[in-house]
């Protein structure tokens, strides 16, 4: 269970995140929605503690993440950034092993156990056969799956994803989000900033909608993503339909 309360972040006198409360139940997928500049990435960075909040607290399973040493925190929270670097000359397996960093002492190399965990993560994301490939030779979708495997190798209870489907073709988008869903069923709590409302509608249990650094709506995806909300936040007209088979909301614009 992730509970952030009254989180704020101010830089150069600008309030990017303004007293945000976020609550994500364990083992569920929540989508963080909002137009560009709403503060989604900043909020994720505050929760991951890669940026220090100006105010507020982040509790994960009743532990204050802000008070944990950074390595301890990195064993509980993993972050997948958008558009990770592409010029990395490590092998896929070495990238995945980076996820063991918070579990290792500075002096120790990767143990056999670290190797097993990394191999399992590669298996989970379906990238085992790519283990020896150099990371920079992968396609965008493959890179993102490797980043997910790296995050899994951290063995986190909270997985934060910043636009994980950015620049991916549609099949890669679906496979990445399906993967996140299946991780959630194994008990990982996932919070993903997403642009695509329809993807968010089909893959998330809850949505948190940000506008100008504030939460304007939060709750179960079905109940929260209404035409009125979409109009007021994104300034577009939309209707919410039902998928004939899954029954999940589908958003059509215009």
């Amino acid at each position, binding site marked *: 269970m992730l509970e952030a309360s009254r989180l704020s972040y101010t830089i150069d006198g600008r309030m990017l995140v303004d007293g945000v409360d976020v609550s994500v139940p364990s083992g569920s997928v929540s989508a963080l929605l909002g137009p560009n500049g709403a503060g989604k990435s900043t909020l994720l960075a505050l929760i991951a503690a*890669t940026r220090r909040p100006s105010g507020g607290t982040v509790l994960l399973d009743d532990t204050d993440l802000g008070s944990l040493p950074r390595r301890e925190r990195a*064993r509980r929270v993993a972050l997948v950034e958008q558009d*990770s*670097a592409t*010029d990395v000359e490590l*092998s896929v397996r070495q990238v995945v092993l*980076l996820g063991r*960093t918070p579990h290792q002492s*500075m002096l120790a190399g990767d143990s056999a156990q670290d190797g097993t965990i990394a191999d399992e993560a590669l298996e989970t994301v379906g990238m085992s056969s790519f283990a020896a490939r150099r990371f920079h030779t992968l396609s965008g979708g493959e890179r993102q799956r490797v980043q997910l495997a790296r995050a899994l190798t951290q063995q986190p209870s909270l997985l934060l994803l910043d636009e994980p489907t950015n620049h991916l073709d549609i099949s890669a988008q679906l496979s990445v989000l399906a993967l996140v869903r299946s991780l959630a069923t194994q008990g990982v709590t996932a919070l993903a900033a997403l642009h695509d409302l329809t993807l968010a509608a089909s893959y998330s249990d809850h949505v948190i909608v940000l506008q100008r650094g504030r939460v304007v709506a939060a709750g179960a995806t079905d109940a929260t993503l209404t035409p009125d909300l979409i109009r007021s936040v994104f300034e577009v007209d939309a209707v919410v339909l039902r998928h004939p088979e899954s029954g999940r909301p589908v958003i059509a614009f215009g």
Partner: protein
Amino acid sequence: MRARSKGRAGTALTGALLAVLLVASVTLAVAIGPASLSATDVWGSVLHHLGFGESPLPGLLDGVVWELRLPRVLTAAGVGAGLAISGAVMQAVTRNPLADPYLLGLSSGASLGAVAVLLLGLGLVLPLAAFAGAMLALVATLGLASSLGAITPTRTVLAGLAVSALAGAATSFVIFWSAQGDAYREILGWLMGSLGGATWWSVLIVAVAIAVVGTPILVTGRVLDAFAFGDTAASALGVNVNGTRWLLLAGTAVLTGAMVSVSGSIGFVGLILPHAVRLVVGGAHRALLPLAALSGAVFLIWADTLARTVFDPREIPVGIITALIGAPVFAVLLWRRKAIA
């Protein structure tokens, strides 16, 4: 699994080959010169000085091996290794493939410190002054870069260029103002890098720097990998990004300062060799750092051997050789990167 064992075996094999090559290079480089010697002569003389048996060489030649060539070749090896380690570390923590001790102003800063004390007639504190200069330049470069925002590759290079130019101008001014006669020639050779003055003292300085600073850097190589995806990613992996970066950069400043104090500023070694090794074994620093150190040692031994033999009896600064080899290699690396991108 197979990929890993193959990778490790490949690394170990490359390392073993380079180690053999290093020993062979030291032997050959000592043997090569105006007075030509055989490998057996060289080892006989070295063993004699280590307390085993008689030297096969007459006193004068024995002196050439033990007092002149061996310290020079060992200094070249140590400086090459130190510069290659510094370059690899700087490229990792600034996430900048162009970073090397030269580009970030370290060498210029060290030169300024060294030239200043040389002209003041304080040759004894030269290593200290070179180190202080390197440190000052590093602080200036990174201070300037971080005053513009996050430390990004581009900012670091631009700041380094500014600091380099400033330190270079200050060095020129100091020389112009106070150097006379022979001092000019000495300083010039020194600014372009030369191992001509290497003694056992140089060997000692280089060895101590590598043992005290280089070894811990080699051992903690794994943490450098965490910088591959940038500061945020490293921080999310539990790495103390700023602390680690400054500690490692300070380490490379010490290392570079020590190297520059015995050899002047030799360019391109720290830039090119990490890239060349990365091409062969990939970017994981546990393999990259020791292999870059070994190949840097071999490279500089041969560059220096060329520097003292091609225009025999005249000797040219080794920095000219490393630049002549390094610049085209660098261009090839740039083209290759373009192909990747």
